[in-house]
């Protein structure tokens, strides 16, 4: 005889249980944190195969809570979807869900446990347990549901009455070693009939008797008639055993033995650990042994009990289930958006680097028509970090053309465009990290008055900081000169710069090169691509003052902006897929390439041009490229050096007078030289006369 050792319960909660608990708390319980009845279930011990090997390993004894755990409105568990699954046995319990984490921390653990133990003991002493033995499985669940974060702290207790002195067992035997296959099969059929006849409350615990015609099965409550004329050795008590260990029965046996001891003064009994392979009509894993107490000691008071579930560390403490991915709507939106993009990759373009695109931090200079459409397209690609810079307020003509604004944004002088655009993006997709900054970008030829110098310096410092914090910059402003400073910074910091500009019915979308970039191009024998200003021999200057009203507003065909913005975003994404990145050479569409756009392209998405010039009147796009100009007023070496050496001092001179740029780049000198040539001609021609 050895000490009878039991295999304890391991809790197994299904996701729907948490969902229903959440719903009940919000709709029904509200602040009522009194214990509520729930129904768990368990099956007999199971094994699971180790993939790739031929062996199986035992699963722990699982007490499960599923969809049907809470009673429906009528208080029953009779709704078809609420029934416990086939081949399982019921375990009634209570859940106490606290309202705050502090309540959870300060629950009277002892009192709650005692409440359940008292109930079990009361069932045993009153006879109720014999009538409904499923009550021997009573359990307790304490939870705290954090409904904002969809996190559930939980702790199970499975009270088992302690026997003192403890039970012992003799050697455990397989059912096949005790009874012939015919008898075993007959027993299985008897148990099936029994379950069918008497229902779930009786199914987990039953009596077995050996007779002439084989084994017969009866309910616990029928003990007296069933065993009339039998002696102790003929009594076999069976229970659905959730354990699948070779030598140890499961937890339900503890309270069952307590019942047998109290009610029928049992001190020695044969135990049948009933173990069925789910749905396969196979009970060969069942076990038999004799359980025995050293002597009969009448139990008068409620015995001590144990049974708080240990956490995975083996210590007594609660567990945590984080269901945000399944329940938090923001997370669900994340999953859906992500999935949509992944479908592109799974179905069509396996080389799509979605994460790279999503993690590209985008800075949008300008939150007007271009800014709004660009932001929306970026969202469609799953870009997570979008920042707007704009110094204006939403005006009444904006919402119809700028899809991130609404009528209400125009009232009371109008909200700040940058911040409002960011807020609007967040409404579309809460998972985006969208920010807006209202600030001005100083421009060449727009002198700064002395009292505003400091704030200009701050704006520039801010702009430089934003450049550092982002990977791709979109120039989406409404004037030529405002693009100068960002172009310089972009070339200096070697950022992806996508420039979009609109005419009435024409547009330009281009990616900036990185200035002359001598080192790279010298060693590769390639030519650098230009920026927005590389084709100019005059400095960008004040184009905004002294204009009539119609010249000041950029009037364009309404559809143009959406087209140009979408092209700008797709160009950026294509660039991100090009192995050379910002130094990618310009692809042009020629007759051959037209045949097969994927033939000689460096990007997985197709051609990567330098510039796209669109002509809406003809519905035609041209792919053009331009070289970097060594006297460019924005990206040439002389300008970048001047900025490096003098910093704000250089910039200030440019803002005060744009021709400073022409001096620095040598354009002034060049013009003087060509004028000299002219004069010489003029002189010559005079002489000839």
């Amino acid at each position, binding site marked *: 005889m050895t000490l*009878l*050792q*039991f*295999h*304890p319960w*391991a*809790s*197994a*909660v*299904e*996701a729907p*249980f948490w969902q229903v608990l959440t719903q009940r708390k919000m709709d029904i319980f509200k602040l009522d944190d009194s214990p509520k009845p729930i129904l768990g279930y368990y099956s007999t011990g199971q094994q*699971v*195969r*180790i*993939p790739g090997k031929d062996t199986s*390993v*035992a*699963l*722990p004894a699982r007490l499960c809570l599923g969809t049907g755990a809470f009673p429906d409105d009528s208080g029953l568990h009779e709704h*078809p979807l609420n029934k416990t*699954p086939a*081949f399982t046995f019921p375990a009634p319990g209570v859940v106490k869900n606290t309202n705050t984490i502090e309540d*959870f*921390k300060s629950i009277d*653990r*002892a009192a709650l446990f005692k409440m359940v133990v008292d109930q079990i003991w009361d069932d045993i002493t009153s006879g109720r347990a014999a009538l409904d033995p499923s009550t021997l499985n009573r359990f307790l669940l304490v939870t705290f549901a954090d409904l904002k974060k969809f996190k*559930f*702290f939980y702790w199970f207790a499975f009270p088992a009455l*302690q026997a003192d002195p403890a039970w012992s067992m003799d050697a455990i035997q397989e059912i096949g070693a005790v009874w012939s296959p015919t008898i075993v099969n007959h027993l299985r059929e008897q148990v099936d009939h029994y379950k069918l006849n008497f229902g779930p409350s009786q199914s987990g615990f039953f009596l077995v008797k050996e007779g002439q015609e084989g084994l017969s099965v009866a309910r616990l409550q029928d003990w007296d008639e069933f065993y009339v004329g039998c002696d102790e050795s003929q009594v076999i008590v069976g229970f659905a055993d959730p354990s699948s*260990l070779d030598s*140890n029965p499961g937890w339900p046996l503890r309270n069952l033995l307590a019942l047998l001891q109290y009610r029928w003064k049992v001190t020695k009994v044969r135990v049948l650990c009933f173990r069925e392979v*789910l*749905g396969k009509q196979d009970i060969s894993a069942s076990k038999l042994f004799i359980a025995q107490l050293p002597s009969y000691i009448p139990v008068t008071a409620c015995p*001590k009990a*144990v*049974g*708080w579930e*240990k*956490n*995975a*560390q083996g*210590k*007594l*403490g*609660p*567990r*945590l*289930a*984080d*269901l945000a*991915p*399944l329940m938090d709507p923001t997370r*669900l939106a994340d*999953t*859906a958006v992500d*999935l949509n993009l992944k479908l592109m990759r*799974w*179905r*069509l373009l396996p080389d799509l680097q979605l994460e790279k695109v999503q993690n590209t931090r985008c800075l949008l200079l300008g939150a007007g028509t271009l800014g709004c459409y660009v932001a929306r397209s970026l969202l469609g690609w799953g870009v997570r970090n979008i920042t707007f810079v704009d110094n204006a307020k939403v005006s009444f003509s904006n919402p119809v053309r700028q899809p991130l604004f609404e009528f209400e944004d125009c009232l009371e002088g109008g909200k700040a465009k940058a911040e409002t655009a960011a807020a609007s993006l967040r409404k579309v997709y809460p998972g985006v990290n969208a920010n807006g900054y209202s600030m001005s970008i100083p421009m060449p030829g727009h002198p700064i008055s002395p009292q505003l110098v400091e704030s200009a310096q701050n704006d520039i410092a801010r702009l430089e900081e934003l450049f550092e914090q982002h990977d791709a910059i979109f120039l989406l402003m409404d004037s030529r000169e405002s693009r100068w400073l960002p172009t310089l910074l972009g070339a200096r910091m070697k950022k992806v710069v996508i420039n979009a500009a609109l005419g009435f019915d024409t547009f330009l979308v281009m990616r900036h090169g990185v200035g002359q970039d001598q080192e790279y191009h010298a060693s590769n024998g390639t030519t650098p691509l230009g920026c927005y200003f590389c084709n100019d021999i005059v400095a960008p200057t004040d184009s905004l003052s002294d204009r009539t009203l119609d010249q000041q507003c950029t009037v364009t065909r309404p559809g143009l902006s959406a087209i140009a913005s979408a092209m700008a975003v797709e160009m950026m994404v294509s660039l991100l897929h090009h192995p050379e990145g910002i130094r990618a050479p310009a692809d042009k569409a020629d007759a051959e390439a037209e045949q097969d756009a994927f033939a000689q392209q460096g990007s997985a998405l197709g051609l990567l041009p330098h510039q796209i010039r669109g002509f809406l009147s003809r519905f035609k796009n041209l792919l053009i490229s331009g070289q970097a100009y060594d006297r460019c007023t924005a990206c040439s070496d002389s300008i970048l050096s001047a900025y490096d050496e003098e910093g704000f001092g250089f910039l200030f001179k440019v803002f005060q007078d744009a021709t400073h740029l022409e001096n620095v780049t040598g354009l002034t000198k060049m013009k003087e030289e060509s004028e000299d040539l002219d004069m010489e001609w003029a002189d010559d021609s005079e002489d000839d006369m």
Partner: protein
Amino acid sequence: MTSDANAHQPGPSARLTYSDFEFAIKAFLHQTRHHTPWSYVEYSPRRGQPLQGYLTLTKLVHSHHTSSGAPSTTTTTTSTQVPGAATIDPADQLLLDELAEQLDDIPDGDDHDEDNDIVIQQSTNLTFDYLSVNYHIVFSPSYQVPVLYFNAYRPDGTAISLEEIYESLVPEEWRGAIRNSGLNGGISQQDHPVLNTPYFYMHPCETVPLMETILQSNSNTTTAGDGPSYLESYIVTWLSFTGQAIGVSVPTDM
């Protein structure tokens, strides 16, 4: 194609109407009643419309992941979370540890020390690294075929990621093929048509060509007058192809 079309068609069709599907799954349910515990679940697709049904099965499988991401062993792991759970927020972990310490001090009439002799928590042949997998066979009105939906959960109810699905459910020899299926199938994810929560599924675009091939070769070998028997074996045939990539199969003696 009307709903009566199949009834008048001369031969078996890979595409099913909903009533074909319901017949087929009920037949399958009957065929597997002694092997695998599939269940039939009813639901109302739209108010006032007759109830429709789908099949569900819950299976326990060995998980390849422990909480630390290391290959699983058969003993318990060393963190406060359920074995195989996702990484826990450090703030939450702190709270859990705090609670464990706090509550340990409170006397609770719980003489667990004495009881430890009697409790066998672990065993070399016991594993806590398992997943509960739900399989659903649901009808797709747009593809007109059954679709296999599935999700896998840890013992605390949390769902696992696609990566873990590959590790734990897809047999190794299948992983490359499934991942690269592109246009031809593979594991995808969408809202379950009845439950409206995210579920993984085996994409059905491969099903029709596959079933057509099989039905074709079957009809070459069976005698005429077999009638709707192809519906009776439809699910068995379909599941034996679709399910093996994802850990659910049909018993070989069927």
